[in-house]
């Protein structure tokens, strides 16, 4: 049990199936990459916390993966609850995954209205000479969203390029914007988590 409570910020990954959300998650957790888009490898990915040090203070980013629910059904609204940041992910080699982002953006502002939103173009390693999605298209998208997007990044999970930089920057942005709120944050305002306690007598009881 930690003695000092480090502020924990929930960060969620959003975007189409197959753009590499789980790969980003895997890079974040143990810096590995799996080539085959083997569904099995997504199993068990839930959320993972990592501490970042920004401006002399610790901040824990708790990254959440969708669990693959977006494949055929919609993601539960619960997924968005309590999120402080959302990363909109698209694949740089897949224009469709980019053009559908407004739908995901709508979900974020509906269910996680306080979340800061970041844009991430993944699979930068697959970029050909003629880009499928140009920088000006990305800029135009950000403008259309009334500047709801706090930052944009290009990453490659295959090479690991840009991933750590992205999360470091997200942590920085969250600290900047939440400076006062983090200080005010008290457990009183929110509810509490149920934690297992005194489970031993339960098991020894015959009832």
């Amino acid at each position, binding site marked *: 049990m930690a003695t000092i409570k480090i502020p924990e910020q929930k960060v969620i990954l959003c975007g189409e199936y197959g753009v590499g959300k789980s790969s980003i998650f895997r890079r974040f957790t143990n810096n590995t990459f799996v080539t085959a888009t083997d569904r099995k490898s997504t199993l068990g*990915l*839930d959320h*993972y916390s990592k501490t970042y040090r920004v401006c002399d203070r610790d901040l824990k980013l708790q990254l959440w993966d969708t669990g693959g*629910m977006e494949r055929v059904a919609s993601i539960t609204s*619960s997924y968005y609850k309590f999120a402080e940041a959302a990363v909109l992910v698209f694949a740089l080699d897949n224009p469709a995954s980019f053009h559908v982002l407004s739908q995901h953006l709508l979900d974020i502002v509906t269910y996680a209205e306080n979340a800061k939103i970041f844009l991430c173009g993944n699979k930068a390693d697959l970029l050909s000479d003629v880009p499928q999605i140009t920088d000006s298209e990305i800029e135009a998208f950000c403008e259309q969203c009334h500047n709801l997007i706090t930052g944009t990044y290009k990453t490659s999970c295959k090479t690991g390029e840009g991933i750590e930089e992205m999360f470091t920057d997200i942590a920085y942005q969250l600290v900047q914007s939440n400076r006062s709120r983090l200080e005010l944050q008290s457990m009183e305002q929110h509810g*509490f988590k*149920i934690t297992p306690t005194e489970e031993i007598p339960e098991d020894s009881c015959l009832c």
Partner: protein
Amino acid sequence: MDEEYDAIVLGTGLKECILSGMLSVSGKKVLHVDRNKYYGGESASICPLEELFSKFGAPAPDESYGRGRDWNVDLIPKFLMANGQLVKLLIHTGVTRYLEFKSVEGSYVYKGGKISKVPVDQKEALASDLMGMFEKRRFRNFLIYVQDFQQEDPKTWKDFDPNTADMQALYDKFGLDKNTQDFTGHALALFRDDDYLKRPALETINRIKLYSDSLARYGKSPYLYPMYGLGELPQGFARLSAIYGGTYMLDKPIDEIVLGEGGRVVGVRSGTEVAKCKQVYCDPTYVPDRVRKKGRVVRCICLMDHPIANTKDALSTQIIIPQKQVGRNSDIYVSLVSYTHQVAAKGWFVAMVSTTVETDNPEIEIKPGLDLLGSIRQKFISVSDYYEPTDDGLQSQIFISQSYDATTHFETTCLDVLDIFKRGTGEEFDFSKIKHELGDEEQ
């Protein structure tokens, strides 16, 4: 959809979602389908408020209700017992990490036209206005007996065999009067009617223990309520199922449950697609010909701009009206949650009055509950049938859950789920199969 699964689960109500999660965790290949566009079925929380109004055919809410999106109104009101089955399931499955809870502030019981705090320990028993002086001491002795009672230690039974003697005999042993029996059985042991008096006392003793153990966990009251409403619960279990490989499909109508040899289920058809499976788990609405009506439940959702009188302005509370107090056979339950649970706009409260229907005029039946609330801004009444399966599903391999009953907690819900799981898989759920460390690592 055209694949083969170990189990297909129909409906995303709480029971089905828990089952889906448990099956996926146990290594089964699960397809989970709902005909609705949203998760939760009957156990969903309705958001935004406009949707609730239109669901009940009411004109849209005016601006005094604040932002519609700030509302998450449950259709079926229930609280979690802090030490109850659902909390154990949440902890063992790790689903608790998706949720935040608040303690319900007060637990009250109705007697002679007014409400009193439910006394649970010796101190409260002596201070309670529910009983006279001598009765208080008898009740106190009863509470001490229950507290010291250990099922595995017959010495603590004090010359009383709780396995054979009924609860009435135990009340008589302590000389408790009808009044005290009433609130003990209904507000502490949470029985809906008086049938328990004739059953072995052990059941009631354990229920009172559950109440006081739950109270001991977070203070104030034995009840917990999740932030953003009860609809978060099925979603949490759905995520668990998905993480363990369950496939989800919403907005998918089910046209037929396909049977094979010997009336055994072989698949589920939607339009021209057929998903093959060995088993089906579903709620009664998917199999109307395999369930029978057991009774009816009346529920009234009340939107209010004030707390309930005489509850010390509690922002959440439960009031139980024992059947005898109002000349009925089943209790009336009142529950209240508010904006502090993110289920209503700032300053608003959501109360729910519910009971098992006994007459042709259910609306009149809940009047004693409504009268306690004071002024109500908007009222939505619904009467729903309560179904149970006609068989145990072993022959057809179609396992059907019971409809949600009028109780205000999830104990019966969990018992039904664990029972279905056991029938379906032939074994008790093995909690050790869940890998706790997933994502739970603190580094």
